[in-house]
């Protein structure tokens, strides 16, 4: 046997070069469907079996009848006519026509580009969208006003979104400046250095840390002469103005409100420079910017829009 099969791909030679094969017919498929129906009916519904048997008999009969046409001398059913030959159109005269191949090339590339866009753009948008959405700054309860003696700086570490847990811990330097126009005045500075975001430290002795009741806030009294950054040598005075190093503006500040005798922290904002001190400080608000971004001076035009 092995000798007869020489190489794959070659059909073995038969003695009978012209084997007679039956003409194509659809009845076997129908018969198979009927058999399947019989088997299905055995599991699902007995009536299906009955119908299946009937169909099998009918289709089987038709199949055998078609296959045995020759033997019984009936003419073969007409086969599908040969496809008509298509004449090339190159001989036509007249205005030049838009060639089919060019149309297909363009259509392929165009559809490909469309698919690429449909897949990529929403995905890119999804990835990039957070950069354009404004940050939601929730209000944080920093405890009762009695915790903030006048003129004393306190390092307040709080969890801004309790549900997020530790990742939302932030620190602010808070000082109660006394009343101004019968409204309590606070200076609240963010501790993030505005050079590159490192956590600044108060330059001065610090006291005992105490936890507040009922709110996730921890206070540490301190007596800073200024604030310093441990990363690249930035330094600020107590109002947050830069005194040395690479920071590009003053420390960011927080808005605040007094609600039922408690200090409530609002949204942060950026500051170019603070004039004056304490309750008399004159502060120009800029929208909250990333560290390293100038908010005034000629360099501000390098950052036309900070999301």
């Amino acid at each position, binding site marked *: 046997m092995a000798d007869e099969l020489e190489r794959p791909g070659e059909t073995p030679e038969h003695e009978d070069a012209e084997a007679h094969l039956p003409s194509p017919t659809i009845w076997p498929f129908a018969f198979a469907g009927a058999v399947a129906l019989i088997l299905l009916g055995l599991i699902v519904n007995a009536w299906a079996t009955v119908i299946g048997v009937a169909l099998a008999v009918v289709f089987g009969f038709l199949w055998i009848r078609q296959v045995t046409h020759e033997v019984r001398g009936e003419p073969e059913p007409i086969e599908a006519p040969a496809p008509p030959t298509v004449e090339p159109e190159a001989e036509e005269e007249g205005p030049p026509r838009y060639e089919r191949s060019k149309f297909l090339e363009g259509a392929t590339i165009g559809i490909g580009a469309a698919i690429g866009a449909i897949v990529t753009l929403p995905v890119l948008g999804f990835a990039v969208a957070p950069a354009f959405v404004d940050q939601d700054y929730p209000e944080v309860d920093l405890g009762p006003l009695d915790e903030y003696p006048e003129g004393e700086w306190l390092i307040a570490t709080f969890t801004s979104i309790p549900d997020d847990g*530790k*990742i939302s*811990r932030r620190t602010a330097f808070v000082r109660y400046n006394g009343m101004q126009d019968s409204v309590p005045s606070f200076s609240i500075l963010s501790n993030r250095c505005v050079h590159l975001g490192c*956590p600044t430290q108060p330059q*001065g002795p610090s006291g005992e840390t105490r936890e507040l009741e009922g709110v996730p806030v921890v206070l540490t009294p301190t007596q800073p002469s200024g604030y310093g950054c441990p*990363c690249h*040598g930035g330094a600020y005075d107590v109002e947050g103005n830069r*005194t*040395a190093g*690479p920071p590009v503006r003053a420390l960011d500040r927080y808005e605040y409100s007094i609600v039922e005798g408690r200090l409530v922290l609002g949204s942060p904002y950026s500051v170019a420079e603070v004039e004056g001190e304490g309750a008399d400080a004159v502060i120009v608000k800029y929208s909250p910017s990333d560290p390293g971004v100038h908010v005034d001076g000629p360099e501000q035009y390098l950052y036309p829009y900070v999301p």
Partner: protein
Amino acid sequence: MSNPQERAYFKRYKEDVEREGKPFFPYAMFHDTVMSLVVVCVIVALACVWYFTSGEEAGDAGILGPRYTEEADPGTTSFVPRPDWYFYFLFYLLRIFKWPESVVLGTVGIPTIALILLLVLPFVDRRRERRLVRRPVAVVGALLVIASMGILTYRGATAEESLASEAVEQVDAWVEAQGLSEEGAEGAALFAELGCLNCHTYLDSGASQLGAPDLSEIGATGQTAEEFAAYIANPAEFGNNVMPAYEDQGEEILLLVGTFLEESKGEGGGE
């Protein structure tokens, strides 16, 4: 784009290799395999040393550093951030550019320029010469780059802070070096905490910013503690418009710092 000499070189190269080259396997691949084994062993050795010399506590460091530091705390006021060691050169670059207008240079300017130089190298250097003795620009350039990256990385690694948390540790050394009294030592601790080292240098600590002088021997000028205290309270009165005023700290603290400065006369009168 390529000229006929370049193409001729490559043709010669191919012929030479074909005629006289050695098969990659096993001759060259053997070297590669040995080197790879060395690399893997070094990595495993480093991992072992790192693990067995450190402890489970956060921050418990062995020869190769701790296994991990404390869990991330965005509200900390005592941590000193540092990048991974292979970024130390960039880190130190940022410390060099202290002026706010120049920040962009250090953060993106210089690294971008360096990257562009790397990318255009093959287009700038079109010479075919490969022997080192005939490539002075390349050799000098390479040496300069290696030296500067090395120095920047080293300086980045040893960069110390002038902040309270780190400076306070130096006080004992200062007490010994300058022979400070008890009040002087208290003043020294306050001097460290108040952030004076941000701009002044003192013995081996501190930074030099905005033209602030070194204070190691300031006592040798003969000024008294009270005079120092008055100066620090409001430097503008004495013509210094750069240094901030410290009168908020209170007379007591300023006097202690003044005492410390008065006693800082330098080591035995020498340099």
